[in-house]
């Protein structure tokens, strides 16, 4: 249980806790499709500590959502298969567990929030019923007790008139309110790790700000490890402690948030940062990343980014794939020429 974890004032992970809450090592996921073998995740390694926010940043098709699904054990299988690596929660390898054991971990220890709350909630049951179900199945509570806890949860995520609204169906909530219900559901059993897959992409900016501040607050209170999966460089800058940038199923850069924005050390990260228009700047010609991300059935040999990279040389087009070089303290980049990338400005 995570409820008795000691909190310190700053909301930083308690250093007395040993080891990361969730550790993913060399994860491999492939999709066996008619069009061929798609290597969606090719050796991804990351960890998240209690009370910490790790952002996994990448464009569509880079494998960030598949990674999350593999961790949760909700990968569509077939066609998706985990073919290698380890996913350890507090030292126990989830991939070696039976489906029944994994089910106990899900929601209790690791929970997930999805992008589209309307399709993630069941349209034919009331929100209260769906929340209470968690307590009945996992905690063996009665219906009445479950209902009571559901009201408390809706209160927790600041849904006004929670007592009445537990009787409402998902379609009766607005987009922002539905995402709050999703958060309530994910937090119901007090998980230690929360995975949020594009939690605010479908929402308007003012609602996005509400949801992100709610998430940050709940995370701080409960000392959860948060894995935020997103493509939005702005949201990441606002909430993340560390960032992992993914491209074509691999981590290409990992670093604390300030490091990434101040000194990006992989050409892809650097190019991404230069290509986003900024609210506080005008007139700068947007630099463009030429070409397209590779299709996962035909990832180029060597560095997957080489056809689009302005630093690419012969070495980059040949196997092996560049390893994660340590470029500074806690900062790693999978580029042979990271020194050059860092020098350029």
């Amino acid at each position: 249980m995570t409820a008795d974890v000691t909190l310190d004032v700053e909301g930083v992970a308690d250093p007395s806790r040993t080891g990361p809450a969730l550790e993913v090592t060399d994860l491999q996921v492939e999709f066996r499709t008619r069009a061929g073998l798609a290597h969606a995740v090719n050796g991804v390694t990351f960890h998240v500590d209690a009370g910490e926010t790790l952002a996994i940043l990448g464009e569509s098709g880079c494998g960030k959502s598949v990674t999350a699904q593999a961790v949760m054990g909700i990968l569509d299988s077939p066609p998706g298969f985990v073919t290698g690596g380890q996913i350890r929660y507090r030292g126990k390898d989830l991939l070696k567990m039976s489906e029944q054991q994994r089910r106990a971990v899900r929601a209790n220890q690791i929970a997930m929030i999805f992008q589209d709350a309307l399709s993630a909630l069941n349209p034919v049951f009331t929100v209260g019923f769906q929340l209470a179900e968690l307590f009945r199945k996992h905690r063996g509570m009665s219906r009445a007790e479950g209902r009571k806890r559901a009201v408390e949860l809706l209160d927790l995520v600041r849904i006004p008139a929670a007592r009445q609204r537990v009787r409402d169906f998902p379609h009766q909530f607005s987009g922002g309110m539905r995402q709050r219900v999703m958060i309530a559901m994910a937090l119901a059993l007090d998980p230690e790790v929360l995975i949020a897959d594009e939690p605010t992409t479908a929402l308007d900016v003012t609602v996005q700000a509400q949801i992100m501040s709610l998430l940050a607050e709940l995370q701080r209170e409960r000392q959860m490890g948060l894995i935020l999966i997103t493509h939005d460089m702005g949201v990441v800058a606002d909430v993340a402690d560390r960032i992992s940038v993914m491209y074509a199923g691999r981590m290409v850069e990992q670093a604390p948030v300030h490091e990434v924005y101040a000194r990006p050390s992989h050409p892809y990260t650097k190019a991404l940062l230069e290509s986003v228009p900024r609210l506080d700047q005008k007139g700068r010609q947007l630099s463009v990343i030429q070409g397209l991300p590779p299709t996962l059935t035909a990832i180029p040999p060597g560095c997957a980014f080489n056809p689009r990279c302005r630093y690419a040389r012969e070495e980059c087009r040949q196997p092996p794939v560049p390893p994660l070089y340590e470029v500074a303290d806690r900062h790693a980049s999978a580029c042979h020429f990271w020194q050059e990338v860092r020098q350029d400005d």
Partner: protein
Amino acid sequence: MTEPTAEVVLETRDLVKHFPLTRGVVFKRRVGAVQAVDHVNLQLHRGETLGVVGESGCGKSTLARLLVGLEQPTSGSILLHGRDTAKMSASQIRKARRDIQLVMQDPYTSLNPRMTVADIVGEPFAIHPEVLPAKRRRARVQELIELVGLNPDHINRYPHQFSGGQRQRIGIARALALNPKIILCDEPVSALDVSIQAQVINLLEELQDELGLSYLFIAHDLSVVRHIADRVAVMYLGKVVEIGTHEEIYDHPTHPYTQALLSAVPVPDPTLRGQRDEIVLEGDVPSPANPPSGCRFRTRCWKAEEICAEEEPPLVSRQQSAHPSACHFAEERDVIHAVG
């Protein structure tokens, strides 16, 4: 960039669109109306980009549909090159429509999957055959495809053979086919990935310089609008609440809604975390079928007083606001730059 004296190519005067809400099957009684666009006055000058921003449901897409004639206004008028479109004859309207084209949001559904690129980009010529003789159309289509940065050899391919960014380029080529003066872009980059967004934005800017186009650029992404727009109109629940040059709106916003909207946009710079003036609005946008009395933003506004419920603030320049702002208590507040 434009001089303020440039001629007005498109104008709306008190434009209103209400969608009736009915009850009953046989006898449809009118029980109310969704006030999607309510008394909107905008002017678009030659060679200029006017950004229209607002959250979902604020009426910005309805505005675009009205301007291209996909919806008929409830009242008010649309002036194209100074002439009222409602007073034009059918043939005049047909001709006028060549000048104003639409680029749609979703490049996956706005292209017919059974048509080749050549057919899609050439279709405007089938509707307006007088523009170009049939013999020269194929060459023109190739030219257009090249103009938007696609390979002209691919003109016989189908939409599914292209990526999202390339499809959006096809949509842009189709919009350019009839040499329009005005392009309405309805969220043209919001369905695209970040690295592709920049390509399309740059393309739109190049085309504007080359062809002297005027853009009405509708988007919910304020960073993109800041990048591309010369002037910006902020909409809330069917009304324009603030309008001005991009500097006036972004650096000197005076309407509380604009300020809240701007402060909610995350800036990709972690050193600014906690340094910016953050306004987190309570609640959701009210239903446009039953908007609040007086100022429509008052239910979420921290400045609201009695007068806001009683009197609708007009969109005018005020003592505290050098540009038009529809707030009784309009006052400048810089929300995007770090404080102190």
